[in-house]
């Protein structure tokens, strides 16, 4: 397999530039700039965003001139599974209560790394039991158990 080469800082710079311009435009269009002696809510947001965009431009130019670097190998589906588990917690928490939510979240999170089914079941059960006792009974979390 040939390593994937790319100009890292070019992408960093372009990302900063884009975000900076979007934020600056958003602040400029919706907020009062004010005057130096009575600064409006938009002054610092616009100034910082523009500076950020400017730095982004410099980083991009510098990155364009640099030799490309090797991209570190990453299995992106694993973090995606973990992120999905977090979203699932948000979706379920107020509808189903603590026990089903924690069970589902822990189960999905377990799928991010290879494990034997019985190990996953035992681990998830331990997480659920711990949360039910510590968060519900001891710390008094507002979520009901079911």
């Amino acid at each position, binding site marked *: 397999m040939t390593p994937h080469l790319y100009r*890292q*800082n070019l992408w*960093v710079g372009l990302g900063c530039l884009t*975000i900076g311009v979007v*934020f600056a435009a*958003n*602040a400029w269009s*919706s907020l009062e700039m004010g*005057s*130096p*002696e*009575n*600064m*409006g*809510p*938009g002054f*610092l*947001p616009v100034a*910082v*965003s523009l*500076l*950020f965009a400017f*730095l982004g431009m*410099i*980083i991009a130019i510098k990155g364009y001139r640099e030799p490309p670097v090797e991209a*570190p*190998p*990453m*299995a*992106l589906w*694993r*973090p995606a599974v*973990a*992120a999905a*588990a*977090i*979203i699932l*917690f*948000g*979706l379920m*928490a*107020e509808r189903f209560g603590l026990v089903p939510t*924690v069970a589902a*979240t*822990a*189960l999905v*999170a*377990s799928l*991010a*790394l*290879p*494990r034997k089914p019985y*190990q996953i079941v035992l*681990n*998830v059960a331990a*997480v659920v039991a711990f*949360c039910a006792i510590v*968060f519900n009974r001891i710390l008094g*979390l507002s*979520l009901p158990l079911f």
Partner: protein
Amino acid sequence: METLQNLELGLLTALQWHNLVACFTGALLGTIIGILPGVGAAATIALLMPTAVVLPADTALIMMAGIFYGAQYGGSITAILVNVPGEGSSAITALDGYNMAKQGRAGPALAAAAISSFIAGTLTALIIALFAAPLTRVALSFGAPEYFATMLLGLIFCASISGGSMLNALAMVLFGIMLGLIGTDVFTVASRFTFGIPALRDGIDIVTFAIALFGISDILINLATGLQGAAGSRAIDRVFPSRADLGRIIMPSLRGTGIGALMGVLPGGGATLSSFAAYAIEKRVSRTPEKFGTGHIEGVAAPEAANNAGAQTSFIPLLTLGIPGNAVTALMAGALMIQGIVPGPQVAINQPQLFWGFIASMWVGNVILLVLNLPLVRIWVALLRIPYATLVPWIIVFACVGAYSVNNNTADVYMMAAISVIGLLVVRFGCQPVPILLGFILGPLIEENLRRSLVLSDGDFSVLFTRPISGTLMAASILLLLLMAYLTRRKMVGFRKLVEDDV
């Protein structure tokens, strides 16, 4: 005299049974979680922050400080036993510590780490007690321009030594400030950077932000790249060091303490840089420099003393000025704010019990760690065998419950997911997350103080340069920026590299 009275008040506070329990719990939890693979001190504090905020302010602060020392010591344990430094600050410990472990001297190496940390912790707590009161008095004369200038210098300094490209680090500081400005402006009630999302109107909660950027992002990164270093452990026969070992520990510990205490005060520096510097200096003063890196006990003692001293003195800017200099103190500042306490010189005056209790607890915490850690070494070794796959669901569930419990709102959970993905991207593209957190926390304070300064001066920006203290600090900021520009042109990656090259 005043110092002694203050220390007495502090010790009495720290030794109250509930604070003692908090300190012990913190140190124990910190050590355990610090040992677990893939979870560092900042992540540990971030994850436990929702628990800490239900406690009274002094107890919460003492517990979080305990977690911090504990996690740092936990990081040294993994550095020595399996060559996986839990923290940047224990990376250097692994050089000699792991080699000692390979020679069957893991016990003395762990003991050297614990004893030198204890020496450093004790001396540094005294140093802080001596300097805190005078520094607080200086800080009281600070007006808005001085605060602005100090925070600006802190942010630039943090960017200059956070590792990686300094240009990128500066950009990350600005990014953090932008994220910190999200929400409703306190002066005018205008919504800023909310992009029509109602949940963003209250801004991003500091706890959610910290858990996402340190707790969850770390997991996402470890999942994406695979955790470095295989867990495995070797037998430990002798834990306690011989008399000869003890003799070799003392001087390096004292030198390390001095270096760490000095460098820790610098914003952004703290523990990591001081451990590198202490190692480099120790090697230079040694009569047998060639032995460093082969399992030399001095090479464990000096950086461990320095990182502990540096970690503790990094609280000085937070306690006296209210300015956090690194990720951990930034998290503590966040925890204080949640408790309704604005970190700064007023804390020492209005709440001496909180202030001095916290300082005294640093020393109490170090005693607990020393007593706790050596006898429990075998348990720590067992913890190293827990596979990462078992931990991931636990950490994710804890983080979700933590983020939810801040406001009892699922919006915080979604925000946590979003920020952690941003954190993953930031690291993926070779940038640093620490400057983002610092910018996030200091951004709103910088804006407030800039506005106040300009109101006082009728819009004249020169107020920042004409007052003596703020003028000096502004000049320092500009010099630092110029120096960074020069080093970047010379293709030096940062100040940290200067020290690392020396090692």
